[in-house]
């Protein structure tokens, strides 16, 4: 019994880690801008394509940092172009702009790649197989949760201990007052997008080592699921997003193990709806009182 479930459990933990790295980006942006950044899943896909194209001509040791830098630039640009002009607009407009940005990026990627699935390069060491108990898996499966947790710890320290972290907490607490206190809102928001994009880039390296092909729309589903994870953990809370992501990753793979592959996506959304109905603030979310 356990032998049969073990590979699914491992896959679940690994996928959970990858969702967690994307979910952190969602939850940070939501915490500060109160915006579902629909384009985040596409930034993740774009990171995959950067890797495909860079490794075609550059060695791995140069392309990995370059991928992260390019993804960060992309995330920063999306924020400046699509969200910054709408800072004072109603929330619905910003969300529509996010959908538009996602649409634009998908079409742009389709244009550049010609719509064909691209083979993701095999990252050295990460792609090697390893034997755990009775299951054989790639090293990335084990590296993912460890790396995820390390990165998240680093991030939480950044937010708790540094000046920019304090500014971020202040902005997410009250947008307008923190502006009055002399915090440069725009740079705080930019930093948020930079961190989120960098984590998405790392997540995409881990994700595509497992899935090996990149298509322009491949990021949409992991993106949505990572968002669900962020909501599940309590949007705005980073540890919550990580725990939510692991729970969703594992649950989804256990459902596959039970033979209901078609429902693994549906389950995620069902979970989302149940959470929203019974505990709208998620597992670790802060309660906010509605002001009239």
């Amino acid at each position, binding site marked *: 019994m356990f032998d049969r479930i073990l590979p699914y459990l491992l896959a679940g933990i690994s996928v959970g880690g990858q969702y967690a790295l994307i979910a952190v980006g969602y939850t940070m942006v939501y915490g500060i801008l109160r*915006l*579902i950044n629909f384009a985040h899943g596409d930034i993740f896909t774009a990171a995959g394509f950067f890797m495909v194209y860079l490794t075609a001509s550059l060695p791995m040791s140069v392309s990995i940092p370059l991928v992260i830098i390019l993804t960060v630039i992309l995330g920063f640009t999306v924020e400046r172009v699509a969200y910054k002009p709408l800072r004072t607009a109603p929330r619905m*407009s910003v969300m529509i702009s996010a*959908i538009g940005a*996602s649409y*634009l990026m998908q079409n742009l990627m389709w244009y550049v790649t010609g719509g064909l699935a691209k083979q993701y390069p095999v990252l050295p060491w990460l792609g090697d197989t390893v034997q755990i108990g009775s299951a054989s898996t790639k090293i990335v499966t084990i590296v993912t949760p460890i790396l995820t947790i390390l990165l998240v710890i680093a991030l939480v320290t950044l937010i708790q201990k540094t000046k920019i972290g304090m500014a971020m907490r202040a902005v997410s607490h009250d947008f307008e007052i923190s502006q009055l206190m002399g915090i440069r809102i725009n740079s705080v928001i930019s930093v948020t997008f930079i961190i989120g994009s960098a984590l998405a880039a790392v997540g995409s390296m881990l994700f595509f080592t497992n899935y090996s092909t990149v298509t322009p729309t491949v990021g949409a589903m992991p993106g949505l699921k990572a968002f669900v994870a962020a909501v599940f953990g309590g949007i705005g809370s980073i540890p919550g997003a990580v725990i939510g992501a692991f729970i969703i990753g594992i649950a989804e793979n256990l459902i596959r193990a039970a033979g209901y592959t078609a429902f693994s996506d549906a389950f*995620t959304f*069902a979970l989302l709806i149940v959470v929203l109905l019974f505990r709208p603030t998620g597992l670790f979310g802060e309660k906010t009182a509605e002001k009239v």
Partner: protein
Amino acid sequence: MKKMSKTRLIVCLAAVLLIYVGAWFAEKSAGTNSMLVTVLKKGAVYALIAVSMNLLNGFTGLFSLGQAGFMLVGAYVYAVFTIPLKRHAAVYQYYNGGIIQFELPLLVALILAGLVAAGLAALVGLPVLRLKSDYLAIATLGFAEIIRAVVQWDSLGPVTNGSNLLKTYPTFSSTKILGSTVLFPFIVSGVCIGLILLIINSTYGRAFKAIRDDEVAAEAMGINLFHHKELAFVISCFFAGIGGALLAMFQGTVQANSFKSAMTYDILLMVVIGGMGSVSGSVIASFLYIACSEWWLRFLDNEQFIGSFQVPLLRSGFRMVVFSIVIMVVVLFFRRGIMGDRELWNLRLPKKKKGKEGLK
């Protein structure tokens, strides 16, 4: 809004009639298979769907992203009940001819498509409509995905044909009116949009707008929030279901896999381009949107030569890039869309100053 004067009403009806005659004439002169006619048909279908979404997003201020799911329900109900009996064996080849051994007349199936979608919406709305703004959006999006997964479920195969195509049901070419295929979608969506307009101008419509403008104030005025939200949701999904059925008729085949969230986004962009809260805006925008994406911008997808000079950048996929840039420009710089919240028939009214829009 003041009651429309009689002359104005007559002018409007005459304009609608003129559009119908124009569409009929276009098909007669351009031929049934021309691009113009395809665009007209698809545009009419999407006009209905966009208006139904606008009723929810633009008039009631409920940001729902579940439209594709309810369209899927409508499309499937229509297709399942109108596939001719003798074709069942061929369509349901993996499920022994399916378990539905009867067929309904086309119009009955069309209305049933709307009713089933509305019924499902009533159930979905009970829990979901308690949520607000972006939570509502993501929950309805989730429901659409769940519906898609359930329809493709193998155990429902005898009804839905699993993840296989549904086909051979009557399409627009079997509903010719005056020898023209374009009139049926025009008439159905015209009637439906007319009904939506009547709803918007009724007391219910005014209550919807009050909820959009300020929920708390609306509640204080004695509007039952939940009741009205549920009503708007059910009505919108009823018409989305009919729209889905029309889309099925347009396409000739239905597969659950094509009703992805991308479809909802397309419709949402149409609503935004037309102007949130403008029925005529949605109609104009959907025809424009379909015409641009299917027809006018097609040339961008092919390599072009001016003399011996090859125009750079033009190749497959460039059309969608240009198209999405145009959409972004509209979203960022012309946020009110083509019509704002005005209608074609009262364009001359002064622009109202808006305090806040839909969501806070």
